[in-house]
């Protein structure tokens, strides 16, 4: 064994000092522990429905799904989010559906209302329906990053490619920015 390893010498002191300094620095960086757990979310107000959420997420299919705030839904028969603008009939025929993967489901409620729900197993987060709903309807459909699917990458690939900077990092407790009357609700 090397002699100078015995006991606590100058080098050890320097090491300890270095560690202390680094530790202090780290705490500084951590804002003295103020830093909360941040998660990625889409700001529905900024989203311009470019469709990149479907293609740029690191997982496949994307962790971004369409969510539906039924409290601002019109339950219209002619739904801009469900039907192609060129649709010849208002039914569930594939030729009339806007959703490329038929993830948006339509169910008759009562004359003249229809319920629309999203099948997240199919949804790829392309925002086609979101745009249709915003343009022709109430804007009750919108995209959101599903926390259970998202890997919460250090640098979100979607955020990087989002042309309208709609993907933002927010504290977990504020997570799920969904459209609704009133303020964005926490998910509990």
């Amino acid at each position, binding site marked *: 064994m090397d002699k100078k390893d015995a006991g606590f010498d100058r080098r050890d002191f320097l090491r300890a000092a270095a560690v202390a300094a680094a530790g202090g620095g780290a705490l500084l960086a951590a804002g003295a522990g103020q830093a909360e757990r941040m998660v990625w979310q889409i700001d529905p107000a900024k989203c311009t*429905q*470019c*469709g*990149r959420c*479907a*293609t*740029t997420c690191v997982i496949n299919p994307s962790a971004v799904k369409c969510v539906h705030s039924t409290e601002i839904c*019109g339950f*219209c*028969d*002619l739904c*801009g989010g469900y*039907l192609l*603008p*060129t*649709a010849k009939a*208002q039914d569930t025929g594939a030729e009339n559906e*806007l959703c*490329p993967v038929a993830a948006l489901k339509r169910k008759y409620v009562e*004359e*003249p209302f229809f319920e629309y729900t999203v099948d997240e197993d199919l949804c*790829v987060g*392309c*925002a*086609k329906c979101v*745009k*249709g709903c915003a*343009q*022709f*309807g*109430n804007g009750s459909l919108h995209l959101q990053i599903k926390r259970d699917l998202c890997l919460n990458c250090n640098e979100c*690939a979607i955020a990087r*490619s989002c042309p309208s900077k709609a993907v933002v990092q927010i504290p977990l407790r504020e997570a799920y920015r969904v459209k609704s009357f009133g303020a964005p609700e926490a998910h509990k």
Partner: protein
Amino acid sequence: MDQKPLIPRWAWTVLSAAVLAAVVALFLTGKPKEPGPSFRHDTSNFEKAGAAQKRFRETARFALDLANPTGIAATADGGLLVCGENTLLVLDAAGKETARHAVAGTPECVAQGPDGRIYLGMRRRVVVLDAAGAAAAEWPELDERAYLTSIAADTDCVYAADAGNRVVLRYGFDGALLGEIGRRDAAREIPGFVVPSPHLEVAMDPMTGLWANNPGRHGLEQYRPDGSLASSWYRAGMTIEGFCGCCNPMAIAFRADGSVVTAEKGLVRMKVLAPDLSLAGVVALPEDLGAASGEAAAAEDNAPVRDLAVDAQGRILALHGPWKAVLVYEEEQHAAG
């Protein structure tokens, strides 16, 4: 083990360098896939649709000195009434302000009766002014849910559209509530109004038949004074012929020839339907009304056209909220020169 390795050591240098070069190259050349046509929804062409059928052009614009105009109506003498925050404006045919009456509260809609009296639909009650604009009467307050959005008068009664309760109220000139029209009633085969937001409209056709829009069903319904459904017409669709989205048509007005002018929100446009309700011509498209999807205003207010009227000269008057102006449209041939 032999002295000379069978692979010379410089080979490893080459291999390592090559691998690193390849890796860096891969880093620099990678780019994510862009969404294809199946993932992109291009709606712009629907804003342009109908440009070919334009039969009208804007011939004048009356700027209004009025905070937040809400309703417009044509008067018998060729002038027009515009109501807004605490105010009722009287304009002449040239759009010059001839009188201004203070009103308590914001009328949502205005109409003139056969006797020249002016009926203002406040949120929950009807206020009556005489021809000179002096307060004449105030009709009883309606219930909490009430939300009057449109008012019209014919020779023997006044009709007020209550969007909150989804019915049209029929009043006598004295303010007596004579009846309710349009409440859902399977027995009388009345489908009932579907009104997600306050855009229930009533209008009188030249033969003083009562018409109302049914926004949720994208169409028009004609009622007899007794409240029975005379006829109904719906055309849902995003093409220029149809009505789409929430609450369209959101405003209607009849022209002398019995054709009807309609205004839409969301996909903001104005059209004229012939008496047989086929598309007779397009009046204005989103870009004419500052509501093309590119424009910032589009996001701010998706129903810029607040109300419609047709004046004695047959001109179409559209009340543009954000611009605080009355847009005057005339049919092409008349407007020439």
